[in-house]
């Protein structure tokens, strides 16, 4: 174990003395910002798409919106996140005249991408709510949109919360692809320490531990939210 001891010391030297922890903190911050904002944007987009998809389709506008949403989901689920990131950062946004830094671009792409996945999660959640709830809302004269927002979606969210937790965890882990556009994240920060010190084992183990702790914290948070949302169930 003496050998390992030296590796730990080397890691410590690069982490503390050469201030590798600054990069790690910066990376942690970016990872969290990208995943959290991505999830928020994704939830908004996903909810909107899911609402369009369950809308009654008598009129032309909902039918057109539905076609657009189908295309959107097909596009963003059909290509890898890395590809979307590269296309947005190097091609699409510059063409449109935006020169954003890599972290904002990552936030946008993560939001758009998770929107496609969350729309499917939300649709399943909405369809799992008893259709009688929508009927009752419409029967007292509330519009489709109001009933959706006030009655159906709050119940759907309770059903899909565990799945949304999974989506958040997936986003956290997937932030490791943002190095493709030169953004600093947890993965890059530890990789830098590893390559600088020529010692790979300890930084990579440390990195894995940080991810595991993050994910464990999220799981705890989701459990806590589930409990507080169970208010309207029988056991209270």
């Amino acid at each position, binding site marked *: 174990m003496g050998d390992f001891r030296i590796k730990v010391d080397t890691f410590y030297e690069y982490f503390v003395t050469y201030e590798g922890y600054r990069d790690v903190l910066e990376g942690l911050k970016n990872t969290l910002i990208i995943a959290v904002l991505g999830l928020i944007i994704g939830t908004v987009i996903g909810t909107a798409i899911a609402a369009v998809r369950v809308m009654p389709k008598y009129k032309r506008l909902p039918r057109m919106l539905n076609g657009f949403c189908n295309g959107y989901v097909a596009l963003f689920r059909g290509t890898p996140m890395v590809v979307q990131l590269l296309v947005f950062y190097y091609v699409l946004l510059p063409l449109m005249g935006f020169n954003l830094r890599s972290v904002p671009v990552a936030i946008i792409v993560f939001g758009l991408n998770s929107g496609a996945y969350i729309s499917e999660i939300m649709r399943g959640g909405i369809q799992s709510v008893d259709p009688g709830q929508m009927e009752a809302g419409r029967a007292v*004269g*509330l519009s489709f949109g109001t009933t959706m927002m006030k009655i159906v979606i709050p119940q759907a969210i309770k059903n899909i919360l565990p799945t949304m937790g999974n989506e958040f965890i997936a986003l956290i882990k997937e932030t490791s692809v943002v190095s493709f556009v030169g953004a600093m994240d947890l993965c890059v920060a530890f990789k830098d320490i590893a390559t600088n010190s020529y010692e790979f084992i300890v930084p990579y183990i440390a990195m894995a531990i940080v991810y595991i702790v993050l994910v464990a914290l999220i799981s705890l948070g989701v459990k806590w939210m589930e409990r507080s949302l169970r208010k*309207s169930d029988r056991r209270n």
Partner: protein
Amino acid sequence: MIDVIDLTKVYGKLVVLDHITETIHEGERVVILGPSGSGKSTFLRCLNCMEDPTSGSIIFDGEDLTDMKVDINLHRQKMGMVFQQFNLFNNKTVLENITLAPLHIGLKKIKGREQRAAFKAEVEANAHRLLQRIGLDDWADKYPSTLSGGQKQRVAIVRALAMNPKVILFDEPTSALDPEMVGEVLDLIKQLAHEGMTMVIVTHEMGFAREVASRVLFMDGGHIVEQGTPEEVFDHPKHPRLQEFLSKVL
């Protein structure tokens, strides 16, 4: 009050309602009887366009509800509906179930914080009055999942009442209830009948139908095959299909 003109509803090739023309007058208590699959629930649900008629018109308040340009939500506020499965809003308390629609619809028209607060207080006071009437005011802050079936249905009925509807449509209001809870729900409906509320009721409770109805419609195969006062329909049925039906259920 509701004029049904040449109403037809088709699911695929199945004709559920076949060119029905009928009028519901103000103050009437119309009970619809019929075997399952006769189209009675579909007929009721077409009255407020919960099911879209395939063809024909529903004239309510001088407007054709089947016209896509008519704001159906506005008219549904005047047509209460009570469901077989109660359909209370699970994520709202008993009180919120009653106040949700009146508040949402009323507050849109009111400006000014004080006026809004006053309106909210008024709606809530009214909801408490309604809950007191059915003896459930102590349950105002509970969620529907803690209520029994009979309690849920009574809350569903006062939820409809809170909108001050001109007519209430009952879709088999007691069919999902335990036998011992049927009475409390029927008693409440009878009270409303005595107060002169216009209602259309689909039910299998024959004794209740006879007691509460001012007119009974008997449906079979998408047609209204016979109608009349409860005495005429129950004591002197003319149509063989009705005679057969009554011999089985009475």
